[in-house]
């Protein structure tokens, strides 16, 4: 692969760096939401078994189950944005992304239907074994998605555009570790909102610490397994933030009453994901541009549409904030 001259914008035309930034932000959002969905589906069966043994514990599992359809829906809906921005940057060469989207999208309706059906009937279901089975089914679908993404990530990053099975296994393991870490952090945060929930916080932080430690090791392995590819500053930041996440989780285990540590681990993990996404966007573009000498079509300035985009984005954020804050204060049955 011919190394590119150092260029912050990777040789993209002026204006495209904004799209690159949007791709990083929305891609990170999707990765976090989907990791949360996958990790929660993996964690819930174990959590239900634990809560059944110790019925006095706060019902974190049921809380997560109630919110699960929303989580999965957001994870899926958020995929459109990074796909859009990636295709804008990479143009008609982003076949790998398109194929990936098609393969795993066929599996998603199954997971969604199961999640919504469960959320609707879970109060009437007394068979915890059946609920666990459903969640394992959802997890299986999402794990398949992770496998497809891992294989196609190696294709889109490879100079010869071929799947690298060893690399795919590492990426796949990375995604599973991230999912478990994210779910553990979310569980710690959810448990920390209740009184006397030290046990829940400790358990969540343990899961998150295991996930974050594995993630750091896998990212190190992934980075060192491509000696020809120089590691960027973003990669180093991501690695350090992952280690910081693991550290915050360990402090959370030791001091479960202090709510600072679950929040610290959440912020650090989010930063790590954003930083790694930035590295991957840059690395993917570097391969595409070096390999094909591809020049994306110029993005003509559209000031009115850009302004409309900002307005719609502000409205969307306002609605979501209203959902999070307003509903809580005006809760009451019809």
């Amino acid at each position, binding site marked *: 692969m011919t190394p590119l001259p150092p260029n912050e914008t990777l040789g993209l035309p002026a204006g495209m760096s904004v799209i690159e930034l949007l791709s990083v932000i929305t891609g990170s959002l999707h990765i976090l939401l989907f990791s949360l969905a996958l990790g929660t589906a993996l964690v819930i069966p174990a959590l239900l078994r634990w809560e059944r043994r110790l019925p006095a514990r706060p019902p974190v599992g049921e809380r997560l189950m109630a919110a699960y359809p929303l989580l999965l829906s957001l994870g899926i809906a958020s995929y459109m944005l990074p796909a859009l921005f990636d295709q804008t940057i990479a*143009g008609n*060469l982003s076949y790998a992304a398109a*194929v990936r989207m098609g393969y795993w999208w066929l599996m998603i309706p199954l997971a969604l239907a199961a999640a919504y059906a469960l959320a609707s009937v879970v109060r009437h279901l007394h068979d915890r074994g059946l609920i666990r089975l459903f969640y394992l089914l959802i997890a299986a679908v999402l794990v398949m998605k992770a496998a497809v993404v891992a294989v196609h990530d190696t294709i889109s990053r490879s100079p010869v555009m071929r799947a690298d099975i060893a690399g795919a296994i590492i990426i796949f393991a990375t995604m599973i570790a991230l999912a478990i870490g994210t779910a553990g952090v979310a569980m710690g945060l959810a448990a920390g909102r209740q009184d006397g929930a030290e046990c829940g916080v400790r358990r969540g932080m343990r899961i998150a610490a295991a996930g974050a430690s594995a993630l750091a090791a896998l990212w190190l392995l992934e980075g060192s397994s491509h000696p020809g590819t120089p590691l960027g500053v973003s990669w180093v930041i991501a690695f350090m933030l992952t280690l910081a996440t693991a550290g915050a989780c360990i402090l959370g285990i030791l001091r479960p009453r202090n709510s600072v540590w679950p929040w610290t681990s959440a912020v650090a993990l989010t930063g790590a994901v954003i930083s790694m996404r930035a590295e991957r966007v840059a690395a993917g573009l570097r391969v595409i541009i070096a390999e094909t000498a591809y020049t994306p079509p110029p993005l003509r300035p559209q000031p009115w549409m850009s302004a409309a985009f900002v307005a719609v984005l502000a409205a969307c954020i306002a609605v*979501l904030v209203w959902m999070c804050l307003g509903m809580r204060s005006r809760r*009451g049955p019809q």
Partner: protein
Amino acid sequence: MEYPLGHMTALINRDVFAALGMLFTAVLLTASGLAVVNAGLLIRGQRASSSLLLRALRAGSFFIVPVPFFASLVLGLFVWFYAALLLPSATSALIHQFMWLLAMQGFVLIVQAAAAYAYHTGWRVLTMRDHARWALIFAASSWFGVLTISEIASFILTPDAWLESFRAVDAYINPSFFPLLIVLTAWGVVLGSVAFTFIVQCLAGLTAGEKKLVLAKAARWLWTLAGALPVVILLLMVLEDAPLARAAERFAAGGMGTAVAILFIVLGKRESGNRIGATGAATAFALLVASTMAFHSGYVRLKDPYAIRNYIYTNDIALDAAPRMRREGILTYAHTIVPAGIDLSRVAARRRGEWVFRALRYGDYLGATGGRLRSELRGMAFDEARIIIEHLPVVDSAIPPFIGTPRELDDLTVFLTSPFHDRDGV
């Protein structure tokens, strides 16, 4: 490029794409219409304190809100995936042209997913006002999908002034945008009304008498919405001076709207099961006829070669190639030849004319259309491949004839049959 399941060229073709596109449009319109109908009926039920109507909406909530939403979401993204494989240059070009609109749609989708969840699970925990607000947010975000699809489809059909100016405003405000938006919105409401009727009929938690009562309560409101469609369509026909083929399609759509209106009137006035069944069958038949005509019309448009209104999707050519093609005479401005007696708007058609592809040259085959041929001709004998390229319009009617020099033809044949060139955009 190697994929684990190999190349899928056998599955990627225009017929499947056209059918998928039409199916997605129908599902999207039904979902958005159901969202609008649901929000209206919820507010009506709350204001009238109709516990029966609210109970029916609650019982059918899963099939009214989350299921149609996710069906349209999954299908929409699948169509995008399919288009990116079949027509990569065109899809890339459209994404560049409408990136901000699609980005807005992406964020609206997130809100829509949140609204679907909040509405569906909010029956027990939300106040009436908050619940109605979520229903309205869901309806508005669903309609935004109709707006997006109207914008892109209308641009593909009538880029008109944009071909001269290349200004974004001409792409967004193209001649068929507002008519298409209005017609699709009206169609959505009609399809949503029909879907709502069938969902209520299938609800398990209500008795037969209660179902009739619910439909009777909903009938007047739905009638107002569904009955507006023929009026909208007739108005648009007058404004647009449409040709007969489109007029027939729209009359059929109007007929369907009328049939739906009659259905709701009958359901509202009578409570006879036989009448409900008979009117339902008549509505289904009208829906079938209208849908077939509309689907056929859309299918032909998506497959129609040469005419510039479809050039992006039939020839898979990047938008930026248009000026060069005009310069080289490949893309020419011509008057449409319309047989007398069929066109109701001959004056308008003569004035407007159409951009037409006359032929494609060597470079275009390499850069755009040739991408599709490469997988078919790779490894083939030189002479055989040369004959195929010489007679391309016979082999595939969607491909314009090749008009390069004999030397260019030889070079092109060597390139397309070479086993070493397996990447697009070379």
